[in-house]
Structure formats: structure tokens, C-alpha cells
């Protein structure tokens, strides 16, 4: 028996173990919409246990900790309750950034503790504290930029400048060198630490700037993963297992979602991050805009008649639905149609909207039962049987060029086979091309009719038309 076998475990560490188990169970319960709320609460209980256990650990600065906890709780809860469902992606981005910033500061604080007390810094601590600071700061700055883009404070279009990759590479070099100097114990250690942290903040900004709005699902997942890894890394710095376990769970989740989103766009993660997708496409497509001659524009009443006499209608929502806040009108339309015996289903593309599963949340907000929502693979064979596919503010995810035109920039991206439906109705603000700036041959298809205007107003018009029939 070694000495360690005779030392009783610290009750706080036992509490942390319980927290880790509750987090895993909480995520496990997220596998079904029926148990998901319970899962979130289990996870919240786990968090409460960990925080209470930590508060028994010789806290003296009660005023600072208590005030910050209270202000954070009030601001966090109130803003989370007030935010509109359509603004959810930017809200998640902000909370994500807060977590990343906190992780970076925890690492800074721990390193400072070593330096102030003159304790020799082990390689384990020096390496992981810079790691936390770098990933945490990247996530913090990146999330702020993602927030500003999603909130439309700044343009959602990619922002590019000459020698972008060279600048990024130079900043990365600065981070790596100062990291190495911290680990090597090169004095003053703190100075090199701060340089690495500030350079990471700059890199975080520069790395999200060139990524366009439609690629946000990938970026948000990736930043989420970063904050998770930063939290895990602070666990290594503090020797705290619950931080390591929780951070690893979040890192795994974020990574998995990032890969799924990349697959749904048939693009590698490097292409999303470094491709400045929208910018390149816009210039390529600018010269040859030959589409648009055969477009048939119709009135809301025409669409109402088409839908009311159909047997099956598949609604294809996109970011345009979120912008116009049209989800409630769509549900009203579906209710009216179902009264007339029309079957209504919803086809959800994995990257529709600005975060993974964005459309599902918006439709759920409008009380659309989740049993009517179908994933791409499940709904695609169904389009052939559908009388009408109603495309609401979705563009690139319905573009048949992705399937047929080898020269198209989005060739190979899995799409919803809207063009297989017997009739297609496209609701769109104008003939402007989608985010990727690519012509959509769907609009020239003889089966397709267009209803131009704000999606919500258009749908309201169609609802009035259906009621009048």
C-alpha cells in the first residue's frame, strides 16, 4: 500500500466527481426531445454542486466573488430570457466568448500566483497556462466578432485584405515563440505570457473577420469547442478534474458538430476557415449572371390556390425565414392547409440558418411539432411525391447546380432535392443571388414560380388567400 491509499479523498473532489457524472448524464438525456429538458436540469444541478463545493474552499474575498456572481446571474438570466429566438446564435456566441475570456484569465491568475509567491513553475503548469490563455483568448475575441457579424453590427460578408494568411502566420509565430519562452522560464515570464495572450486576441479577431455569415454554423461550433478545450486546459493548470472532464466533453461535442457542419457543406474545415468563401464566389459569379430570364413571378393568391389543392406540401425554410421572423406565419399557413386536408412537412438542411439546428429551434418556437420536421436524408426521397415544395428564404441549399454542374463552386454539397417536387414555390426578397453569390437554376425551372417580397408579408398574404378559398 502506498501512502496515497491511506489518505482520505477530499469531499470537494468527490463533489466534483458527482458533477462530472451529472454533466455526462445530462448530455445523454439530450438524445431525445422528450428527456432533453430533464437533461439540462441534471446538468444545472451538477454545476450547482461544483460551485457550492468550491465556495467552501477558503474563500475570503466574499464581496468580490458574491457581487460578480450576482451581477453575472442577473445579467445572464435576464438577457437570456429577453432575447428573441431569432437572435439566439449571437446570444450563444456571447456566452461562449465570456467562458473563453474567463478561462484565459484563470490561467493568467494562476501563473501570477506562482510568480508572486516565487514558487518555481513546473513545465506542466507553464505549458498548459499558456495553452488556456491562447485558446481562451482566441475564443473570446472570435466570439465577439461572430456576435458583431450575427447582430449585423458589422457586415456578414467576408472581410478580406491583402496578405491575410501571411499576417496570421506571423501572429501565430509570435504566439509560439512567446509560449516557448514562458515554458523555458525566460524572464520576465509574465511579460511573454501577456504577449502570447494579446497576440491570441488579435488572431481571434483576424481569423473570424474573413468568414462569411452563412459559414457561421461552422464557426460557432468551432469556437464552442475552443472554449471547452480552454476550460479543460485550465483544469490541467489548477489540477482540477471536473474542469478537465467538462472541458473535454464540450471540446468533443464542438469538434463533432464542426465536422458534421463541414460535411453538410461538402467542404473541409480549412476551406471554411481560410477560403473566404462568399468573397471569392461573388467575384467569380459577377461576370456571368445569365439566369433570371425565365423567372415566373406570381401573386400570393395564386400560391394559396396551389397549396390549398395539394395533397402534400413540403416547406423548406432558410435564413430568410429567420430574418423575416416568418416562422409563426408559416405555422398558421400549415394549420390552415391541414384543415383542408393537406399534409405539411418541413425539410431541414443541416446548415440552414446561422447555427446547427437553427431552423428547428425557430419552428419549435412557433409551436411546430418536432414530429413534422425531417432531416435532409429522410425527406429527399419524399420530394417526388410532393405536390408543392415551398421554399422560404433558402437558396444555396436548394441549388440543383450542387448536384449537376461540375463547374459550380458548390458542386458536391448535399442539397434538398426541391426540384424533384411537382411544383416549386420560392419566396424571396428579390432576384439577388444567395450568400454564395451563385445563380440558382431552380428559379429558371418551368415548374418554379416566384413570390417576391418579405417572407412574413408574403406568407400572411398566402394565409389570407387560403382562408378565402
Amino acid at each position, binding site marked *: 500500500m502506498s501512502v496515497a491509499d491511506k489518505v482520505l479523498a477530499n469531499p470537494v473532489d468527490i463533489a466534483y466527481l458527482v458533477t462530472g457524472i451529472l*454533466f455526462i448524464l445530462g*448530455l445523454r438525456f439530450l438524445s431525445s426531445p422528450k428527456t432533453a429538458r430533464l437533461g439540462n436540469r441534471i446538468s444545472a444541478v451538477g454545476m450547482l454542486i461544483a460551485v457550492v463545493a468550491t465556495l467552501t474552499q477558503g474563500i475570503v*474575498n466574499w464581496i468580490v466573488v458574491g457581487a460578480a456572481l450576482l451581477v*453575472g446571474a442577473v445579467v445572464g438570466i435576464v438577457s437570456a430570457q*429577453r432575447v428573441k429566438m431569432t437572435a439566439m446564435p449571437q446570444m450563444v456566441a456571447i456566452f461562449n466568448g465570456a467562458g473563453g475570456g474567463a478561462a484565459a484569465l484563470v490561467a493568467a491568475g494562476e501563473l501570477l500566483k506562482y510568480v508572486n509567491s516565487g514558487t518555481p513553475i513546473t513545465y506542466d503548469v507553464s505549458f498548459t497556462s499558456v495553452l488556456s490563455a491562447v485558446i481562451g483568448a482566441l475564443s473570446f475575441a472570435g466570439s465577439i466578432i461572430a456576435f458583431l457579424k450575427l447582430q449585423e453590427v458589422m457586415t456578414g460578408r467576408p472581410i478580406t485584405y491583402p496578405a491575410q494568411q501571411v499576417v496570421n502566420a506571423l501572429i501565430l509565430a509570435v504566439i509560439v515563440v512567446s509560449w516557448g519562452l514562458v515554458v523555458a522560464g525566460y524572464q520576465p515570464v509574465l511579460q511573454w505570457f501577456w504577449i502570447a495572450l494579446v497576440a491570441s486576441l488579435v488572431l481571434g479577431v483576424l481569423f473570424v473577420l474573413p468568414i462569411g455569415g452563412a459559414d457561421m454554423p461552422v464557426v460557432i461550433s468551432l469556437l464552442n469547442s475552443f472554449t471547452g478545450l480552454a476550460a479543460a486546459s485550465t483544469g490541467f493548470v489548477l489540477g482540477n478534474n471536473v474542469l478537465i472532464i467538462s*472541458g473535454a466533453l*464540450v471540446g468533443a461535442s464542438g469538434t463533432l458538430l464542426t465536422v458534421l457542419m463541414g460535411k453538410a457543406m461538402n467542404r473541409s474545415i480549412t476551406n471554411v476557415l481560410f477560403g473566404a468563401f462568399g468573397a471569392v464566389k461573388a467575384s467569380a459569379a459577377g461576370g456571368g449572371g445569365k439566369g433570371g430570364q425565365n423567372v415566373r413571378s406570381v401573386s400570393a393568391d395564386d400560391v394559396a390556390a396551389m397549396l390549398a389543392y395539394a395533397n402534400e406540401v413540403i416547406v423548406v425554410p432558410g435564413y430568410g425565414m429567420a430574418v423575416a421572423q416568418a416562422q409563426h406565419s408559416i405555422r398558421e399557413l400549415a394549420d390552415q392547409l391541414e384543415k383542408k386536408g393537406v399534409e405539411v412537412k418541413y425539410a431541414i438542411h443541416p446548415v440552414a440558418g446561422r447555427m446547427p439546428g437553427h431552423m428547428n429551434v425557430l419552428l419549435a418556437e412557433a409551436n411546430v411539432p418536432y*414530429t413534422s420536421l425531417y432531416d435532409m436524408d429522410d425527406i429527399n426521397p419524399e420530394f417526388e411525391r410532393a405536390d408543392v415544395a415551398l421554399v422560404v428564404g433558402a437558396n444555396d441549399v436548394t441549388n440543383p447546380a450542387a448536384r449537376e454542374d461540375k463547374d459550380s463552386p458548390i458542386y458536391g454539397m448535399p442539397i434538398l432535392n426541391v426540384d424533384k417536387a411537382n411544383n416549386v414555390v420560392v419566396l424571396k426578397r428579390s432576384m439577388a443571388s444567395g450568400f454564395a453569390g451563385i445563380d440558382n437554376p431552380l428559379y429558371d425551372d418551368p415548374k418554379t414560380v416566384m413570390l417576391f417580397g418579405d417572407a412574413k408579408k408574403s406568407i400572411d398574404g398566402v394565409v389570407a388567400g387560403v382562408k378565402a378559398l
Partner: protein
Amino acid sequence: MTAHLLTELTIFILAVFVGFEVISKVPTMLHTPLMSATNAIHGIVLVGAILIAGTADAPLGAIAGFVLVLLASLNVFGGYTVTERMLEMFRPKTTTPKPPTDGTR
């Protein structure tokens, strides 16, 4: 590498595998709440924040400590509230829809 670091690394790697296993069971429909739920979970950094800002040998000044705990606290409370709000909207066809939530919640 110290034995201690190796133990921690073991925990980390096993937790990553558990994470992949559990997360891959979550349907695409729930991906936004999943992201939000994991977003709340990384708020666990609040534990570190309290230790750094609140203990006797706290290395950070009052203001930096306050900002640190505030950021982590925002992450935790905001994260769980947003997730709860999202999840309460997901309901199957059979349940009757509740009236729209008013501004007082």
C-alpha cells in the same frame, strides 16, 4: 511528463471519448440546444474563477477578480437559461400549444 500530468491526461482522453459517444446520439433536431447546453457546461470554468479570485492568496486584484468571476457567471447562468428556453419549445404533436410567452418571464 509528471505522473500527475499523465493521470490528468488519461482522464481528459477518456472524457473526450465519452463525449464523442454521448454527443453522437443527439439528433440533428436538437443540435442548437446541444450547442447551448455544452456552452453552459464550459461555464464550469467558474470553479476556477472562484478559486483564483476568492481565495486568501488571490493573485488578481479586486477589479480583475470581479471581471473574471462575472464572465464565468454570465456563461453559466445565461447558458442554462437559454438552453431551458429552447428546450421548453420542443414538443410533440399531441400536446396543446401554450399561449405565447409574455414579456414578464
